[in-house]
């Protein structure tokens, strides 16, 4: 509740609040946010709600069609796969794995990337030049390619593919942070603080970081969508999570064997990945636009 104001004072929302208000005006982005929230809730609570385990086989019901099909059965809403496992349960567990691991690895990549980026942003001279040049070269290589190469070295498996994608995502964050820190350091408020005798460290933590948060959030959502696509792509190529894990990409590649007889077992996990990535992209795009609008004002 706004307090009754005695003065003819305008209400200035905080920058973050400002971005948020602007974001809310974008209905599509808001829908994306709801969709994303749904996925997050499904990932957290879903496993407790679904009636079947992700690996639980029901050999009496193999390749059952989804419930809306004539041959479907309401006890398996999305049908079953060739081992009689409930596809809905597997997808919900799959969201948990795919989304969960992606979030974790984006967080790690952000932490590491920002630290290195901040360091690169402050430092000057040869060290900076080396980092910059290496970064430019690495940034040019798509993350999935780096991830495939790293998996080739480490060997296949979910954990290895997580490492691989984390490593592949870090350069983006370094790049972003470095540019941001550089730009901010030239601004007057930093110069003023520096004249007051603030150390580089203090400047970074107290002054620049708060200004960076929103940009980083946007960057993180972008990285998250990339991470989900990559981790499921690796799963699909049998380089990441291995069957029978209900990781969505792995599920898809497993379903290939029955693709013709049971197209839904290919369509549904893919649709889950697609919706997840789409909602994240919508949110990211909305945030980015809102941020740009605020900065332009």
């Amino acid at each position, binding site marked *: 509740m706004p307090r009754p104001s005695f003065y003819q004072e305008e209400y200035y929302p905080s920058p973050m609040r400002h971005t948020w208000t602007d974001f809310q005006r974008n209905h599509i982005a808001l829908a994306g946010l709801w969709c994303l929230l749904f996925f997050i809730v499904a990932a957290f609570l879903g496993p407790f709600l679904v009636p079947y385990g992700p690996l639980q*086989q029901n*050999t009496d019901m*193999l*390749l059952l069609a989804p419930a809306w099909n004539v041959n479907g059965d309401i006890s398996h809403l999305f049908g079953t796969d*060739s*081992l*009689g496992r409930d596809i809905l349960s597997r997808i919900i567990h799959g969201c948990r794995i795919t989304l969960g691991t992606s979030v974790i690895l984006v967080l790690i990549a952000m932490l590491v990337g920002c630290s290195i980026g901040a360091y690169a942003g402050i430092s000057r001279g040869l060290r900076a030049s080396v980092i910059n040049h290496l970064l430019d070269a690495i940034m040019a290589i798509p993350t999935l390619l780096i991830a495939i190469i790293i998996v080739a070295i480490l060997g296949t498996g979910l954990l290895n593919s997580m490492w691989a994608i984390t490593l592949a995502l870090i350069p983006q964050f370094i790049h972003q942070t470095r540019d941001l820190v550089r730009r901010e350091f030239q601004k007057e408020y930093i110069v003023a603080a520096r004249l007051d005798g603030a150390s580089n460290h203090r400047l970074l933590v107290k002054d620049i970081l708060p200004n960076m948060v929103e940009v980083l959030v946007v960057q993180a959502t972008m990285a998250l969508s990339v991470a989900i696509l990559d981790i499921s792509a690796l799963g699909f190529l049998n380089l990441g999570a291995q*069957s*029978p894990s209900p990781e969505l990409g792995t599920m898809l590649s497993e379903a*290939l*064997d*029955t*693709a*013709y*007889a049971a197209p839904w077992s290919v369509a549904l996990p893919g649709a889950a990945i697609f919706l997840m990535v789409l909602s994240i992209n919508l949110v990211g795009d909305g945030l980015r636009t809102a941020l740009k609008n605020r900065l332009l004002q």
Partner: protein
Amino acid sequence: MRRRVLVVLALSILSGCQKPGQNSLPMEGLVYCSEGSPITFNPQLDISGTTADATSHQLYNRLIDFDPETGKLVPSLASSWSVSRDGLTYAFQLRKHVNFHQTAYFTPTRSFNAKDVLFSINRWFDPNHPYHQVSGGRYPYFESLGLQQIIKEVSLINGFRVEIKLNYPDSSFLATLATDFAVILSEEYASQLMTENRPELIDSLPIGTGPFKFHRYRKDAYIRYSRHDGYWEGNQSVEQLIYDITSRSSLRLAKLITGECDVIAYPAQTELQVIEERSDLYLEERPGLNVGFWAFNTARAPFDDARVRRALALAVDRKTLLDAIYFDTAVAAKSLLPPSSWAYDDTLEQSSYNPVQAKKLLQEAGIEPGFTMTIWAMPVERAYNPNATKMAELIKHYLADVGIQVQIVSHEWSTFRRLLLKGQHDSVLIGWSADNGDPDNFYRPLLSCSAIASGSNRANWCSAEYDKLINLAVRTADESIRMSYYQQANQILMDQVPLLPIAHAYRFQAYRKGVSGLQINPFGGISFANVSKDRD
């Protein structure tokens, strides 16, 4: 919007395309989607069905063949043969005017004669033969049958007559000569390569007398054969025969549907219904001479204990495996032999699913709950086991009920077999397709002591008693006496359970409308000798 543009774009490209399924390419040829790359182009050197399918009936001939309908022996390169009264001497009269392939790398100057037969047999039989050590010097099929001990000598009577003497009678010997592995190579080509000092090419650039000659090969991609116009049986088959190597069965089916393949190998059991529903595809079914089983590595503790093996066998409900993996396209296996064999024992009891008993046996054997074992699941589909990984997952499920943890292991096929040979597995899901109709072809290669070294005894199980029985069985030609020996062998297997037989699968062949002359040969590899394709 953008999508609409793309769709319009795609449709405009599509509008120029033919109606589905009509393959109106002007090139004549048949594409067979096979399930894997052959290890070599000489089936003497390898025991796998993939190699035999790819080479044996396309590139080569044997002295004698099985009639695919009746299973009887019929003349091939040998126009006739005779067996001495004591069963020790076999004489073969050879066919004349049989041409070898003329290719870019070899031009024959003479037609087939007794020297070629001598060379082909001596290559694997005589350890001192100059070609014996070429390409590794292992001849697993002949080794697993112990043929080197059975044959005494091979001799040339005249240019078109060969005599083989045995050390002791073997009623399955003729059948062995008719298998996919007993192919006839060209002696002239071999000596030419020897003088050029590159003998190993005989197995990678093959020359034979078969209906097709080798053109080109790319591992995991394709094999190209072209028609051998001078084929002795006359040749009406297609001009080109192409093996499109496609290891995923779903992909093979998809290619069959789109018309990229004319014939596919091993349609998966789940897909059979799809094929039957479509009017442009045909499915042929035949009871197969095969057995899918779960072998325990008896060379490793605790699987050297028969109680453990029995317990594991009891802990698994084979009926479910049959339903879930074979989809009713197989019969439950009681022993090694399929019901279509003459030595099949109808009276044999099958052990039933009994987890309680299994738990008790495990306890007696001192296996603690939580014990972990590996199940190796072969990575390729075979008729006898269309989806080993899935089967392994089901078994894992069952074993969890009796307190055993299972780790499923799978490697790429050639690696898989290499590591199996080293005996690194606890247990393995694999199987066997017979090469001839003789029951000995199941009992000996699968579980005899000599088969351990040649690698077809996946259980690494060796029993003197069992070996004695199956040796006695081949010494006589009387089927009822042989049968009684095999029944005794079955009893040993029931008691010892070196492997758990699971199913005898039907053999399926799927092909497109317009392909004719294809026959399922229950006794061995696929043959395209008389295949033709209508152009529609």
